[in-house]
């Protein structure tokens, strides 16, 4: 905690007037709570009924050199987590940027986002925090910063983004400490997280090449790195005593296109996931290679209302080998996993109110996820949000179905300065 205060003072000390126009600081204070709907007494979760209970101060500091071209940005959260009874600091972003001619360089911890899906990611293989999404934290917390170097080259014809990430960061997925989730190895408590080491050789590379084509935004993507979702590797399939969380090697190649069509915005994206560590697809732990694709359409049929529909598919290659290598008693994935999403947003009262509903529904997994939300901008500074995360499914082994007992209601208030 002492560390937090030192940082806070460093942040606040310069003040606005000292550096004239070059430096700006802003931020917010936020209270955010999420409680399970329905009792969990029988399930004896350590965290009780609360998935989230926190107070948070975010400070943002940014500036640029008077002549331009050089700048910096830092954003840190100081928070107290009531569920774990601990306080901590999270440096969300901290980077330096330099731009000259057709080149922009950005070095440091930063958030990267690309691709055309709405809450569905194919070629965006940057770290994500699904725990934040599932427990009702503001949407921005779905994306986490990562220490990286981003080089952008621009021309009138074609632009390129190249991201190098030497420090591997896994996705954050719900774990049994706060969520009731499916775990095929429930009885095995000896677990080791085996992340790729921070070696230069393990540096992840991601690239995007893009340009407009006939009024559409077209892009090509490539990625070489690791699956960010851990896969459980038991020391023995029949009588496991130890589990190792592994992040197998992955390469991905894809493309996307987005633009106005039929009175709305049409989005198409596809990607091929090459599971490099298991080209023979004979290993039961390491995922098979896949092709993922999505088609989305968004339009605004009346004032301040938008509707967005997406179809998403995951096609597993060499399905026969997957079936053959799957240990008995394990839940089986479909060859083609499909997902439909619908987003409805209505703004009211000069956009001071925003009512929205996001829904996932998988006809193959037979599970769903709904996020109804109402946000009220009380004043320019103060926003109050109430919403819910509702999960369900026919089976407790699918990605969303396993979260069935984690339905929650969340409440957030934020004051921005």
């Amino acid at each position, binding site marked *: 905690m002492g560390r937090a205060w030192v940082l806070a003072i460093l942040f606040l000390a310069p003040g606005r007037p000292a550096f004239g126009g070059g430096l700006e600081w802003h931020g917010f204070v936020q209270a955010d709570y999420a409680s399970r709907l329905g009792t969990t007494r029988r399930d004896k979760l350590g965290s009780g009924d609360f998935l989230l209970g926190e107070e948070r101060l975010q400070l943002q500091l940014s500036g640029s050199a008077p002549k*331009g071209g050089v700048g910096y940005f830092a954003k840190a959260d100081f928070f107290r987590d009531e569920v774990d009874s601990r306080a901590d600091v999270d440096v969300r972003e901290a980077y330096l*940027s330099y731009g000259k001619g057709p080149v922009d360089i950005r070095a440091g911890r930063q958030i990267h*986002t690309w691709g055309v899906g709405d809450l569905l990611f194919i070629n965006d293989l940057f770290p994500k925090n699904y725990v934040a999404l599932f427990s009702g934290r503001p949407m921005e917390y779905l994306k986490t910063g990562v220490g990286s170097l981003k080089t952008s080259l621009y021309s009138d014809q074609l632009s390129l983004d190249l991201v190098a990430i030497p420090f591997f960061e896994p996705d954050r997925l719900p774990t049994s400490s706060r969520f009731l989730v499916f775990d095929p190895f429930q009885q095995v408590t000896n677990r080791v997280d085996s992340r790729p080491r921070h070696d230069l050789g393990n540096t992840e590379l991601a690239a995007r090449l893009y340009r407009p084509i006939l009024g559409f935004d077209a892009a090509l993507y490539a990625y070489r790195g690791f699956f960010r979702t851990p896969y459980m590797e038991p020391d023995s399939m029949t009588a496991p005593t130890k589990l190792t969380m592994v992040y197998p090697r992955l390469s991905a190649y894809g493309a996307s296109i987005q633009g106005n069509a039929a009175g709305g915005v049409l989005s198409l994206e596809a990607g091929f996931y090459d599971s490099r560590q298991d080209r023979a697809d004979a290993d039961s732990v390491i995922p098979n290679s896949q092709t993922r694709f999505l088609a989305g359409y968004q339009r605004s049929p009346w004032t301040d209302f938008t509707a967005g529909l997406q179809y998403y598919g995951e096609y597993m290659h060499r399905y026969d080998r997957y079936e053959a290598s799957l240990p008995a008693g394990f839940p089986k994935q479909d060859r083609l996993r499909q997902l439909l999403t619908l987003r409805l947003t209505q703004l009211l009262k000069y956009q001071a109110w925003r009512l929205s509903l996001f829904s996932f529904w998988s006809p193959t997994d037979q599970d769903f996820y709904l996020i109804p939300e109402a946000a009220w901008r009380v004043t320019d500074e103060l926003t109050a949000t109430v919403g819910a995360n509702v999960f369900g499914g026919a089976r407790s082994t699918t990605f969303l179905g396993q979260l069935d007992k984690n339905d929650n209601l969340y409440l957030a208030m934020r004051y921005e300065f």
Partner: protein
Amino acid sequence: MTKLAFKTIVAAAALALTAAAPSNAQKADPAGIVRKMHQAFFYQGESFRARVKMTLTDASGSERLRELTMLRVNMPKRGDQRYFMYFHAPGDVRRMAFLVYKYPAKESDRWLFIPALSLVQRIAAKDAQSSFVGSDFSYEDVSGRDVEADEHKLLREEEHGGKPCYVIESVPKGSASYKRELSWIDKAAFLPLKEEYYDVQDQLFKEFTGEEIKEVDGVPTAMKRTMKSVKTGHRTVVEFSEVKYHLGLKAEEFGERALRNPPGSWLK
């Protein structure tokens, strides 16, 4: 050489003809007056920049502010424009940037950059009459409506605020949020001084006023614009400052780079 000289003569003659025409044609051609108003109000200079302060006031008097920097560049193709807006305040939209490629006769392309997610998002833009950032102004009010979308009629000529004006009635040819619009267009500068929007019941529901007309870089500019929703009592006042024309902006700069990382010189 002779060919070029001939072309120049033809061009000069054409120019002389069009230049000579207005005094008669204007009166006969209300669409021409509206076109000139559009030119004066939305298209001046090949590029433009202003710091914009929007004050939204509801009937009870409570205020909300929006502060942004707006840049605009005209495209070689007649009527096409690119707009870039960068938000300074309030906090929930700070550092957000908004890019619009406007085409008079078809849907515009719109992109929004959300800094907290580092996300560039395309926005469905079917409805040009929807509210611009929660204000009483619609997208059309900010960047102009296709002149050909309405039937224009010169009703009369009268003084408004001590200035001789054309009073034009514009009736949308297709569906629109209003049944008809009356505009008072200043005969000298061709700026709209007042606009009244009537709904299907032919009742006044929205009223625009252009005030504080100042000459900037040789261009008469309405430094203050108000849009009032008559029935709700809600109004939005837009004040321009640091206005500049002829910035020498390149159209190609209005792209993803500007959204993610706007040039420092744009926001100064």
